[in-house]
């Protein structure tokens, strides 16, 4: 099953320098972990032996052989954070989540990991949640950090974080607004499209915050499904001409109201998107 979907990642990197690590990274990015199946496929398709691939996959901490939770929490135990109380923080996180380092909570929400230096020693102890850095963390903050992780980025972060901003989009066919003010995601009006997959149609909403990646749909869309998107107003199918650089699925173009274009990947789970505010590459 997964094998066929891993194939495009393998092919992409075989053509370049054929780096094994690049292939594994691609798989890890898409699925969150390296399954036995996918490693076997890599072995078969690249002609490398499974032993070598397994050696690489187990050597690097960035690769995980077990499925990871939705949110990745890493507590730094590097030298600087260690002397400032990193271990106590790690312990507290473990206690609150009820898992050891390297494990995932049974509900699949959190994966907890310890790291040896996350590169912000002066601000230690550091805890990183889904790429968001918390500095000078104390054990009392842990509870909040976990709560925030579940909620997604909050107002404040959104205002402060330059990578996060709001986009308002229109249908490229009928130029009708796709914003749904009645349904908020991340506290902002969501973008509504009609999704069609496996002969099913369902309203599909995603966050209008650029970089958030939050999606909601009435019908659960399995990860990796390639979705056909339709405008809920003119019912035209939204298809672009280009393919996703990460996974090869078709990109879906949307018009940004302030000018330009945004393209999102039509594969569920692939976070790739391109923002082109000047409309140069149209």
């Amino acid at each position: 099953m997964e094998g066929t979907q891993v194939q495009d990642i393998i092919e992409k990197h075989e053509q370049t320098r054929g780096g094994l690590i690049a292939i594994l990274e691609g798989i890890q990015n898409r699925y969150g972990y390296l399954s036995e199946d996918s490693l076997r496929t890599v072995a078969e398709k690249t002609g490398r032996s499974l032993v070598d691939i397994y050696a690489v996959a187990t050597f690097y901490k960035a690769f995980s052989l077990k499925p990871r939770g939705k949110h990745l929490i890493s507590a730094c135990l590097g030298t600087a954070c260690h002397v400032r109380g990193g271990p106590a923080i790690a312990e507290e996180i473990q206690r609150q989540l009820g898992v050891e380092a390297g494990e995932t909570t049974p509900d699949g929400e959190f994966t907890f990991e310890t790291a040896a230096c996350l590169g912000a020693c002066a601000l230690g102890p550091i805890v990183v949640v889904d790429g968001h850095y918390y500095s000078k963390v104390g054990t009392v903050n842990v509870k909040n950090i976990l709560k925030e992780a579940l909620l997604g980025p909050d107002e404040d972060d959104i205002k402060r974080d330059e990578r996060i901003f709001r986009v308002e989009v229109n249908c490229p066919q009928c130029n009708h607004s796709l914003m749904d003010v009645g349904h908020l995601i991340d506290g902002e009006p969501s973008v509504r499209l009609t999704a069609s997959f496996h002969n099913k149609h369902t309203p599909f909403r995603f966050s209008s915050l650029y970089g958030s990646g939050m999606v909601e749909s009435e019908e659960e869309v399995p990860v990796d499904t390639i979705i056909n998107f339709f405008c809920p107003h003119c019912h035209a199918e939204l298809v672009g001409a280009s393919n996703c650089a990460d996974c090869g699925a078709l990109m879906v173009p949307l018009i940004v109201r302030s000018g330009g274009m945004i393209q999102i990947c039509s594969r569920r789970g692939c976070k790739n998107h391109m923002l082109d505010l000047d409309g140069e590459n149209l």
Partner: protein
Amino acid sequence: MIKLKINGVEVSVEKGSTILEAAQFLGFPIPTLCHMEGLTPYGACRLCVVEIGEEPRSKLVTSCTYLAEEGLQVRTASRRVIRARKMILELHLASCPQSKTIQDLASAHGVTQQRFKQEYENCILCGRCVRMCEEQMVAKAIGFRGRGENRSIGTPFDEKSDTCRLCGGCMYVCPVCELRCTYTEPEKAVCGGCGNHSAVCLEKPEFNDMMCYMDPCVACEIKQPKDIKDIKDIKED
């Protein structure tokens, strides 16, 4: 041909030979553990250290992987080399105190004490079996996994490998899993001390190069029934 000096004796060897080969050609003994003829040098055990260069800028290198260089000065038994060798052996012994190969090497090099905690590992990660499987048996069934203290040797996912032909080559070349001290059966044991409940090594000269001088003695230390049980548990694990 490359000319180098080993312990003051000049020797010329072909390009691409290692210091170890050159020293063996001259007959200077260098102990090895992970090195094996027919397998690519790997440099994992560090036992074959020699000193190269002039004091005070000399350095220790593993002779099994270091290629002979023109005009190289090599010392295979300087004080520094011997000290390093003893330390390496002591460490190996601490991780696998039951290995007869390591015990014999240790005793041959005058290691008479053990300052490190004995770990009773089953593997020193010398990689002999991995190379045997890959290079001689062309099977690539086993390999290294993980890193640091989690590094281990085995098949991917710990599943039976489809390329393994059960040739047994890996066990044949293993310096640790061959001929273990079995403690309870005196004739199979390295020294029999634990089986006989008396330190035979102290009386019998034929045990002279066994490890029973060790402080603490590997055999004597585990003489107590409780400890014997512990060992068994470890083995079963």
